[in-house]
């Protein structure tokens, strides 16, 4: 495209042994379907994934650097929020 770039998409892939879709990168595409095929070609060509999500980057609301302290600093001294005071049974995975 010479006059206008295709919109940016963010790509999330669920790996073969992964539990969640994980952000792996971004790409340009003209529409959702093209974004999926591009994601398949760019991010799963080494046998990485079994499922892909794509979303227009502009649809992602993100916290900003300015909000870093009010957002995240208050949790730093509240150790009691961690479940480290419980014994987790051996047969409970992924915690």
């Amino acid at each position, binding site marked *: 495209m010479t006059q206008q770039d*295709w919109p940016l998409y963010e790509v999330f892939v669920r790996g*073969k*042994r*992964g539990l969640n879709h994980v952000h792996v990168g971004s790409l340009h*595409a003209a529409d959702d379907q093209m974004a999926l095929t*591009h994601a398949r070609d760019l991010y799963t*060509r*080494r*046998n990485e994934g079994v499922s892909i999500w794509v979303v227009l980057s502009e649809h992602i609301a993100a916290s900003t650097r300015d909000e870093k302290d009010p957002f995240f600093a208050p949790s730093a001294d509240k150790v009691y929020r961690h479940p480290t005071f419980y014994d987790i049974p051996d047969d409970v995975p*992924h915690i």
Partner: protein
Amino acid sequence: MSEDHLYLTLAEGHEDDARWAFGTGFEDPLHGVDTTVPAGVDAAGLAACCLALGDDALVSAQRLAEWTTRAPELEEEVALANIGLDLLGQARLLYARCGQVDGSERGEDAYAYFRDADAFRNVRLAELPNGDFAFSVVRLLVLSAWRLALFERLAGCADPVLAAIAAKGVKELTYHRQYAAEWAVRLGDGTDESHRRMRAALADVYPYVDELLATGPGFGIDTEDVREEVTAVLGQVLDAAGLDLPDVRPLPGSGRDGDRTEHLAPLLAELQSVARAHPEATW
């Protein structure tokens, strides 16, 4: 479980070879397949079939690779190269099978690098220069629609090796056809300029289509049955793209009989130059 990053999870379970960049967890499509030619299978016919399909794939792969650094978008460049690599993989397996059954005991490299243009049996459509992106789209659509229809049938053929190669190829070709069909619709139903280019591409490709559809692989596969399916698929895509079949005559001759255009020899000169300059090299 390394949940930090997807690529870290890839190396898990592959401690001996934990270099995920080279790929992990791959499957050998021919694992456990008996390579002896079954009784009743015509070895010469099988070899000719593997050679023709291998040549289609190798020459197509080279043309697709030529889009690298020249594609209209980075993402398309990778997509086209991926498709080319799928076809290159198919060519390797088909050449290897050819060498097992034609009595020559040649390896895959002998077929790819040490034959001249007049020994190739690919359809001429595969060797035409890339030209416009629309031409590459239409060519890929036609070739992948035909190859998919054929491989679906070959997956049940009497030779277990060719059947396994075809079964692997079906999954790849389904994607190739989808990729090409999406672009055909996008361009055909796009702007006046993209529609015009698609019409021109169809007019350039279709004289070569009959040569492709007229040849059968043997194994009792009905060539007319394949032709009907491919014609229906192409009709469906062109309908969705708002394009009509061009009114063109089939070109006489056939690449399957050794008829070549002037474009194959230069393609092979580039493809084969390194292997011929260093014939004892291994890689």
